[in-house]
Structures are given as C-alpha cells and as structure tokens.
C-alpha cells in the first residue's frame, strides 16, 4: 500500500543534500551542534525534541526521538510527562485565546 509517510524514509533524511548540498550541510552541522551537551544536557534536549515532535505531530520525529530518549536513559513515565507538557502548552495556548474571544464578545455586546 502506498502512503505519504514511509518509516524507511527517515533513514533518507541525510539525502536532502542531493538537491541542495550547501544548505543541507549547514543545517546538519547546526542540528548536530544543537543536540550536544551544553547548558542543557543531551538528555534534556532529547526530551524537549520529543515534546516538540508531538506538537508538530511529525511521525518521523516521534519515531526518531522515542528511540533517542530511550537511548539517553529516559523511561516511559518521563517521556509521557514530556508529551503532557507539549499537550498542556497546546491546550493552554488554545484556551488563553478564549480571552480574545471574550474581549470581542464584550466589545460586541450591550
């Protein structure tokens, strides 16, 4: 069955340089550098990436960062808490816009 998302394609990510080498190299250098231990540990960065991947709902990133967080020593509970952080921010940011709606309602109402 043909689908838009194929798990095998994740491994081909590195090939994006085929069509534009220079920018791909810059991107992967930056990417690699970003995920190294810094003020945040590589493990903390991996959990952030996992949360962001869920916000973007990117199957490639969810696949990659589920494995990566496990390989950074995280467990299921920590990983699910990271997803909840993503979910809380998403729902919170939806709800906080309710204030705009309320403002507008008040503007329009007698």
């Amino acid at each position, binding site marked *: 069955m043909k689908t838009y998302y194929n798990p*095998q394609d994740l491994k081909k990510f590195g090939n994006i340089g085929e069509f534009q080498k220079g920018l791909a190299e810059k991107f992967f250098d930056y990417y690699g550098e970003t995920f190294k231990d810094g003020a945040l540990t*590589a*493990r903390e960065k991996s959990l952030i990436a996992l949360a962001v991947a869920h916000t973007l709902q990117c199957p490639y990133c969810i696949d990659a960062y589920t494995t990566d967080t*496990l*390989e950074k*020593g995280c467990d*299921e*509970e920590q990983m699910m808490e990271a997803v909840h952080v993503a979910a809380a921010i998403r729902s919170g940011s939806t709800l906080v816009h309710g204030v705009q709606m309320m403002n507008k309602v008040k503007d329009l109402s007698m």
Partner: protein
Amino acid sequence: MKSLEAEGQALAKGPLQIQFLENTPINGYGFTSFQDKLNEIDLYPLKPTGIEIFQINLGKMCNQVCKHCHVDAGPDRKEIMTRETMDACLNAIEESGAHTVDLTGGAPEMNPDFRYLVEKLSGLGKKIIVRCNLTIIVANPRFHDLPDFFKKHKVEVVSSLPYFTAVKTDSQRGEGVFEKSIHALKKLNAVGYGMEQSGLILNLVYNPSGAFLPPNERDLKLQFQKKLRDKYGIYFNELFTITNLPISRFLDYLVKSDNYEAYMEKLIERFNPTAAHNVMCRNTISVGWDGFLYDCDFNQMLDLKLDIPDPHLNNFRRETFNIRNIVTNNHCFGCTAGAGSSCGGAISG
C-alpha cells in the same frame, strides 16, 4: 517462562543462530559482515593481546528467566560445572597468568561447589568478580549469608539492574525482581559493599530493556546514583552499560517483535573502530561448564569454540592461546556499536 531450550525452540541451538545471523539480509545494507568491517580497519583476523581475565561459566541454572538472557538460563537448565572441572580451571588459571577471575552463569552461586571455588581463588590471591543477579541473595535461606561470604573473600560484585524503576526492571527480568533486587542491594550495602572507603566494590549493570542501544554510561550513572540514593538509600560504585547482543533469547525477542533487521542495521551503522580494537575477547578467556574454551561468553552460547586444536581446559597452553585467531561472527556487532560493550561496560568514550 521457560528457556528456549526447554521449549524446544530452533533458536536455542548455537549453529542455527549463526545460520540466521549470517543469512538474514539487513534492510538497506545488502549485507555487511563483521569480518568485512574488521577488514576495512585492518583488524581481521582479530588477535588476542594476552590473558588478563579468566571468565568461568559455572552453569546455566538460574533462579530467574530474564527475557534478554544470552545464556538462555533458568531453573530448567541443568548444565552445571563439577568440582573436577573447577580444579582443572584452577590449574589453567595459574598457567594463564590472568590477574582476574570472573565467575558467571546462570546464577553462579547455585553451583553446589561455588564456595569451594571462591575459597581456592581467594587462596591464589586473584581478583575475583562474581556476576550476582541480586535476587539469589534473598531467594533461599542458604544464600542469605552471601554478602558476608563475598566480603570475606573481597569478591567484587557485579549485578544487573536494568533501571531504577520496577516497571522497566520487571519487564525484562521478571515480576517482583526489582523489589527483591532492592532488598538484596540493601543487604550488600549493610556489610559495606558500595560504601565509601570500605574497599568492597559493588558495580551495577544496565542493559536496555528492548531493541535500542544503551545511554551514555557517565550520564546514566549520575541518574542511577541520585534515584537509588534518594528513594532507597542505596549506594554503588560504578554503573556499566552493556549492549544486548543479538543471540539467544534476545535474538528470539528481536525476531518475534519484528525488530531484528532494524536492530542489526543500527549496530552496523554505529560500528566504532575504537571499540573494535578494545573488544573484551582480546584479553579474556571464557570457560564453559563442561571445560571447553571460548573467546567470550557469547561465543560460548553460540557453541563457537576457540580456534585451536582440542579447545578444552585439559589441554590449556598459554602459548597456543595467545597466537590464536579470535572467532567472530555478526553477533560481534553488539560489542562494537556506539561506545562499545563488554562485561565491564562501555569500552570507548
């Protein structure tokens, strides 16, 4: 849960595992054999650097049946080393010049002559390591004094604890294992193991509870230290991270969970030449319960004996041993992936 052997599964047999490892294509790679990889870095045939560690497998009997066990150990396994073979080991240890003797199994303590061997080794002045699964200490009253026995002979204790939570530990090692392990660790701490300045070494072993590679050893040690200390008041010395090799029960798991190809691909992709130069078989000899000789405990389980004439304890000669070619196959990718893996944990930073 039973051993693969007791269930009569095909992958219980070493030669069938080798056949599988050699002939199953790895997605996207055609096939890169371990030999090809060693050739690429001029390391084939792999040669020993001397004998430092003499590892003895005292038998396949164990009180646990862990899902990943490369020995396919369990209560249903009856293979066990006799005292006569232990005596032959003692002679070979003297001949070998090894400074360390590493006792493993199964649960080595279940061998009825385990204490006899430790006492003899202690008399020889060798450093003794026991790979203790922890739960054995609390399994039966006759094992309750093991911490004191270990202490008396200054045995270094190396114990598996795949994680600092019950869920992850029990999913790999069996229901209730975490709680019993914590209990046993407290007993070891109580006699001084893992405590500062006691000189009694308690090292823990992490191995992934699934088809992924171990985390960075240093980072994980910090997490383990904090969690075990804060929650349970437990102390230990080092944490070793060990990669699961694609053999025996872990291989069976990989195949049944449809993770085999992706896992092998990952091991091959993360091949690390520095780790390859430092694999443990270069300075280790491994003896099976029946006295046969192997390059490592993994080869032992695959029935890949030393590549020398008559590879048995009774004919042990240091010279022949030091000029042999190490027998490798595709399972060896497990020792060379990422930071590498050995019985002493990661082998390169």
